[in-house]
């Protein structure tokens, strides 16, 4: 089992409407919503996971995936402005 941390730091705004969808092999592992800056931890089995982030904010948000991960593609830190639309492929 590995622990990963997903953080979202908002900038220049009072909030956001964000949905995080964690998937593995096409199946949903977890769906969560966030309306402000956040820090989540997940304990996961080894494997490859897909984290989809979708939503909107009037400012911007920096989402970072860290922890005992082998790789995070395309980048462990991604910035989004207004439209939050991206994915993290996480290999544990």
């Amino acid at each position, binding site marked *: 089992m590995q622990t990963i941390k997903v953080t979202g730091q908002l900038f220049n705004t009072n909030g956001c409407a964000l*949905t995080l*969808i964690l998937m593995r092999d096409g199946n*949903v592992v977890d769906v969560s919503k966030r309306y402000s800056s956040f820090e989540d931890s997940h304990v996961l089995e080894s494997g490859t996971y897909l984290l*989809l982030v*979708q939503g909107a904010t*009037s400012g911007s948000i920096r989402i970072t995936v860290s922890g005992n991960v082998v790789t995070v593609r395309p980048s462990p830190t991604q910035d989004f402005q207004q439209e939050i639309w991206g994915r993290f492929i996480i290999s544990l």
Partner: protein
Amino acid sequence: MLKSVAYVSFALVMNECLTSASAAQSNIQQEAAISAVKDRGGFFRENWSGLFSGFARLVNTNDQGSFSLHPTVWSLVNLSRAFTRKDTNIVSEEYQREAFLRNLRLDVSLTPTNASKFKIATSQIGFTYAVLNNNELSSEDYRSLSDIQDTYTPIAVYIAGYQSRHNSEFSCIDKFQSITPPDTIFLSDELKDSVRSKFHIDGDLLAGITPFPSMRARMTKILESKALLTFSLSHEYDYHDAHTTAVTLGSHLLFPFWMGETLIPLDFELTGTFADDTTESKSNLDRQTIAIVFGKQFQPLSWLEISPSFSLKTILNHQYSEEKHTSVQLSVTPRVRVTESVWLPITLSLDTNEPRFFGFLSVQYSI
């Protein structure tokens, strides 16, 4: 835009166009995502990208050749960040703490002249505070978008799941879900057909599978439904005669309400002025007036606003001999957007006491 109604009679219409001054945020994503909110405009909506808009909207001229600046205190306090910090982002916790500064606007208007030692004929200096700010979304507002996201989550899961079942689609879906703004050009015809069929999407596929158009529409609706309430204090000074010529207290209420699917924005402004009675030899503030302005705004086209207003002015004390106790004025201001930053308002007024039309043209420019 909506709140400019109260100012049109005095040709001091505020330019409320937001422009993005921060290079870090001036990109297509931002423009696309917030365009609807941006169109909504408003002078208390200040975020980092709108830092300079606090100054921008305020380089105005009027028929007396004066100019005015109306920066929020937040803009002034944070101006140095634009020059001293590489990272222009303000973390949300700090941003929320600075709400008071964003709601407090300074109002400075100067009329230059060569006749005065200070090269200034008159100045108006004051402030406006927004008790109700109608240009910021709260955390609660964002929560209300939750149901929209719920609609699109199954679609996102389906497309991502499709990837695991069709390895050949990997790179295409990678691109689709990684590039902002998303574009269905990356998806195969087979996947598009599959999504359309499964989720009963008949029209624009991108709008059907991405939440942004719906979220933008909801955010716009939320902002349009918010009320604005401001209080202001202004001090007018004559540099030539070296005395205070007027002190003005004002309140402005913008109250939009929905009548069915139609938004009806109503605008009230109440102004009380203690002014100099120029017929007296000594400087004084004995002349007291109250003005009420009621206005409404229509935006029949994206580049055109029409703002009719009705104003009633009553002189309570020290009325001049040629003046009437109460005067009524009707005005209409068509405002044409020339570019994103430049508006041309043309004010036409009718004085009902001495029926005659008069009008003037001013230019509003946003940096």
